[in-house]
């Protein structure tokens, strides 16, 4: 797929379409869509911004590459004056007081926000069914889930309702829905993009991630959003990834894959055979492929969820209805907190908060939380060792194809285990990209920390050979 950003940019510059027409068309598509991807439309703002772009073009002033490009935003990002609900009852009327750094950078570049997109409440889910706005329906087969937690964002891109969307990835929430809807989705290296203004789920793995239909669009949006931000002290300065830098993959000599992912009984037989076929095609191009040892899926999933639950229990403790949110009054302060949280959080969110508080409580913390942290370090050490031997790690995105709507919520443990192939890379804080090739739910390309460029480079290589 060619770059949609370059294509739309040329259409605007050539006056084949006005920005107002473009934005109105996309808003109409979003408004009438039956995939439940929209939490709120930003129509007034979008049309105001489109008019400004049209005024510039009619005056003969040149426009930047992202000026006038319509995009979507997962409903966990602050955009001043817009509703930011996290798909929850608690925040269904909450308005952002400020704008997230990543989104502000896109606004500064002239991109036009159209929509706050449906997702699992507070990012708690892998199917975008845990939402007050109705389950997101898959772009390819609407009887199936859209994936999660950034399901609305992936479906909007797949259906061309937005040119690109900004999701959030804590344990796979960009990469898995991208795979389920056959689009690209990147989880950059942790810290490459500021988290300021992204509603916190698990702060040590939360990443801002672009979803788009081409590698070039991922590159453009990644470059704009990256950079050090004093408002997020975990950010680091990064250099721009140029178009030319990712065209040639000559530097990639060795690719690894985790053999236990592929030998597992849990993997769908078609995904397994398609993955192994992709490996053969890579070998045929003269690249050495190594089968690597890795942690069992159960250990990865348990380590990730234990730490993520501990962090979300802490992060969501501020949501008590005192200063904002849907407060439900009761006889005293403590009762008001408890009733507000009990009535407004979903079952899945409550399960994670309670699990997190178990983990952090006295008697459990050494046995579970500190052990979880130690396991995470072992996982990171394993990655460091692997990247001394291979340039890239390739893996399937999911063990199975998307489930039917309604099936995931019945069995939370099965839902957690379905994240087996994505959570490890989150714990390692590594750059990982889903490409819509290789298996029914795509492939994940992972490189060492801060090597996002290599990931995009290998994606271009795979685009040509698969």
């Amino acid at each position, binding site marked *: 797929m060619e770059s949609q950003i370059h294509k739309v940019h040329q259409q605007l510059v050539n006056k084949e379409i006005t920005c107002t027409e473009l934005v109105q068309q996309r808003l109409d598509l979003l408004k009438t869509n039956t995939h439940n991807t929209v939490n709120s439309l930003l129509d007034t703002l979008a049309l105001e911004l489109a008019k400004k772009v049209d005024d510039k073009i009619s005056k003969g002033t040149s426009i930047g590459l992202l000026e006038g490009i319509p995009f979507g935003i997962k409903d966990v990002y602050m955009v*001043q*004056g817009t509703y930011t609900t996290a798909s929850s009852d608690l925040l269904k009327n909450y*308005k*952002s*007081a*400020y704008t997230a750094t990543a989104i502000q950078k896109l606004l500064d570049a002239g991109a036009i926000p159209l929509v706050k997109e449906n997702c699992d409440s507070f990012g708690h889910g892998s199917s975008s069914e845990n939402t007050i706005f109705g389950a997101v329906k898959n772009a390819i087969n609407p009887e199936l889930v859209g994936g999660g937690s950034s399901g609305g964002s992936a479906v909007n891109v797949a259906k061309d309702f937005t040119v690109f969307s900004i999701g959030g990835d804590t344990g796979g929430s960009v990469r898995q829905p991208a795979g389920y809807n056959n689009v690209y989705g990147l989880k950059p290296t942790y810290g490459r993009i500021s988290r300021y203004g992204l509603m916190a789920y698990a702060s*040590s793995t939360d990443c801002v991630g672009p979803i788009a239909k081409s590698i070039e669009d991922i590159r453009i949006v990644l470059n704009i959003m990256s950079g050090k931000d*004093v*408002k997020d*002290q*975990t950010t680091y300065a990064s250099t721009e990834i140029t178009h030319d830098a990712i065209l040639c993959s000559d530097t990639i000599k060795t690719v690894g894959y985790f053999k236990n992912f592929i030998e597992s009984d849990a993997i769908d037989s078609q995904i397994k055979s398609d993955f192994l076929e992709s490996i053969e095609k890579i070998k045929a191009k003269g690249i050495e492929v190594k089968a690597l040892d890795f942690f069992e899926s*159960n*250990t990865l*999933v*348990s*380590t990730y*969820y*234990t730490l993520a*639950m501990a962090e979300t*229990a802490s992060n969501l*403790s501020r949501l*008590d*209805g*005192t*200063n*904002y949110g849907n*407060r439900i*009054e009761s006889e005293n*302060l*403590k009762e*008001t*907190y*408890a009733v507000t*949280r*009990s009535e407004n959080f979903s079952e899945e969110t409550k*399960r994670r*908060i*309670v*699990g997190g*508080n*178990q983990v952090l*409580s006295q008697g*459990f913390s050494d*046995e*579970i939380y*500190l*052990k*979880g*942290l*130690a*396991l*995470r*370090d*072992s996982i*990171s*050490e394993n990655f460091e060792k692997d990247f001394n031997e291979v340039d890239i790690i390739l893996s399937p995105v999911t063990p199975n194809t998307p489930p039917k709507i309604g099936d995931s919520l019945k*069995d*939370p*443990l099965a839902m*957690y285990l379905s994240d087996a192939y994505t959570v490890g890379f989150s714990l390692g804080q590594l750059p990982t990209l889903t490409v819509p090739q290789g298996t029914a739910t795509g492939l994940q390309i992972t490189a060492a920390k801060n090597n996002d460029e290599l990931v995009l480079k290998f994606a271009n290589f795979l685009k040509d050979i698969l």
Partner: protein
Amino acid sequence: MSKIMTVDILSSIKGAKPSEAVNKLFEVIKNANSNSENSFNNIHNNSLSLEDLREDVVIESSAKEKEIIIENFPEEKNGYLVVSKVIEA
């Protein structure tokens, strides 16, 4: 006073109970082997240089930001923001 606090109190969620699915995850952690004994000494923890801290200054919010913060407040009465009574008379 008992030192044991149940998860419903810890979580401020009425009737909350530990989940069987989540407990299964914890069992895996308890039984897993880890090579790293003390994670707090590990180089993988995110750390921040003292030279790299942001300035400790008060940044005034914009008028629009203040207006939205007040708009988000759940209850207002006679120009005051209403909160639950904390101190009993």
